[in-house]
């Protein structure tokens, strides 16, 4: 009887009959942090793989010689729909310039209570100074921590974003945080395929261009697409 079939469906999910749990055990970084990244706890804290161009926390980039890319033009603040960027430029000191050019970003603050991670600031920036990392787990507990100043946003001397005490950085969050990402994003110009259209970054130099689409698809071994019995595509990440 069709009515009683439903009971079979639910009881088959029991562990005795091979039912699985699809819940990821994730404690929000608490266990890994508490016990100091013990392998077993990190396993319990696993997160899914993040998309390559995820919009996360921003960073202020620097050129290979250490000079900041930001010229204090305030275009990012002008385009921001949430009004979360506060920029004030100042003239470069001739003996000790901070950025190549006449002005640099003297005050640069992003209020993450307002930021919606649309990354229009990234698109607007003429010098690829502001880009984003893949970190989105940076819960702060007070307003002062929420307003990130230039000192916190700028990349350190290795070209990597600074890791503040309340942030939960994972493997791969800080890998691509440069103009390369902006230029090669899906909404970027396809004429960049195979060509370099971005400046060099501190610690990495000029990144190599992305391979062409066909090559990328063939090489994608991390994503395996299989089709199960019912013809549904299952992607194993």
């Amino acid at each position, binding site marked *: 009887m069709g009515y009683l079939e*439903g*009971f079979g469906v639910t009881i088959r999910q029991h*562990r005795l009959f091979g*039912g*699985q*749990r699809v*819940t990821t055990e994730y*404690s929000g970084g608490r266990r890994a942090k508490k016990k100091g990244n013990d392998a077993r706890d990190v396993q319990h804290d696993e997160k899914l793989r993040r998309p390559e161009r995820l919009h996360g926390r921003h960073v202020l980039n620097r050129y290979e010689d250490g000079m900041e890319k930001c010229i204090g033009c305030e275009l990012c603040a002008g385009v921001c729909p949430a009004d979360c960027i506060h920029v004030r430029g100042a003239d470069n000191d001739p003996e000790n310039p901070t950025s190549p050019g006449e002005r640099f970003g003297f005050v640069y603050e992003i209020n993450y209570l307002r930021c919606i991670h649309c990354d229009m600031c990234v698109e607007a920036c003429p010098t690829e100074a502001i880009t984003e990392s893949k970190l989105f787990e940076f819960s702060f507990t007070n307003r002062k921590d929420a307003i990130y100043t230039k000192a916190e946003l700028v990349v350190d001397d290795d070209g990597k974003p600074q890791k503040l005490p309340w942030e939960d950085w994972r493997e791969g969050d800080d890998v691509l945080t440069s103009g390369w990402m902006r230029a090669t994003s899906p909404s970027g110009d396809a004429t960049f395929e195979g060509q370099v259209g971005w400046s060099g970054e501190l610690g990495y130099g000029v990144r190599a261009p992305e391979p062409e689409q066909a090559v990328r698809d063939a090489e994608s071994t991390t994503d395996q697409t299989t089709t199960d019995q019912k013809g549904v595509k299952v992607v194993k990440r």
Partner: protein
Amino acid sequence: MLAIDPLLEGGLLWTPILLVLFKVVIVFVIGLIGTMFMVWYERKVVSGMQNRVGPNKAGPFGLLQTLADGMKLIFKEDLLPARADRIVFRIAPFLAFVPAFLVWSVIPLGGDFSDGKDGSVEWFGHVTLVQLADPPMGILVVLALSSIAVYGIMLAGWSSGSKYPLLGSVRASAQMISYEAALGLSVAAVLLTSGTLSTSGIVRAQNDLQDWNVVLTGIVPFVIFVIAATAELNRPPFDLVEAEQELVGGFNTEYSAFSFALFFLAEFMNVITMSLVIVTLFLGGPQPVEIGDINLLGFLGPLSGTAWLVLKLFAFLYMYVWFRATLPRLRYDQLMDFGWKVLIPISLGWFLLLAALREFSPDGDWQDSLRVVLISFLVAVICVGLFAAALRVSRANRDAAHRAGAAN
């Protein structure tokens, strides 16, 4: 006069009074802990059936989740809507909660019923039953208290002063009243076979597996009681009353904090209570299942009665949770149709059949019984046929009148 418990024979001395108080405290504590456990159990089992994990953060395996929820609810602000009837609004949760507790008092929770013993135990030199009270009309107490629970829900919705709770409570009270009739009729079938209204008497009469009331009354009153109890408790698939998709929150929309906690606890406590009543009425309560003459849980000694009760109880708790995970909700008119047009006729018919069998084949001869069954079947067919004919005639008249009216 106080002979409702063998403990109280011979006047009131100190030890019996303390024993009674001890039993009260035990029943209270077990009731509350059982409710907390039932909430956790339901969440875990339902989540297992839905391929997820369920609460696992508050305490080991999430066991303290209910406690955490209860504490949070206690600390919340208790709101009183502006248009609410103050006194009734405050009283209604207790009207729903207290009957659930009180039913625990008449249920035998243990004791040695094997081999025809009467389930009494000896504590500190006094003979007593392992239940709080054993009035000679125990089952009537159960039915009466479940009727009072209807008051709680109805008054909750009415006194909230807004329309969704009112709608929810009106539906709830109509639902509960309709299914109480079927409930009472199945209990009547049990009473026919057991011959007594007292719960310990009913348990005592179910000595062997073939004497269990689920077998003696045929399986039909058992099934009807289970279904009617599910509707009484407002459990899925009869939970239209508190369906969030339909009525915001039903009768408990305007309740917050502790009053809401009381409704919530009342509902889950009622589940356990009703399951205990089912086990007592139909499955023999603390009666053991014996193979040969050996009690399968005999190694537990004096606790084996309670252990059997708990085992049987768990089967029903799992069944209720299984219902919740599997069945979609019944629409209100389907619910009322089912209660009035299916359950009541079947339970009444079965009760008449049992009564006829008792009267005309008291010795259980198969020829007499067969004759009774055949005649009953014939009577049933004739009645159904007459009823169907009457329906057809009235429908034909109605259509004719409609056509005549439309032609004019």
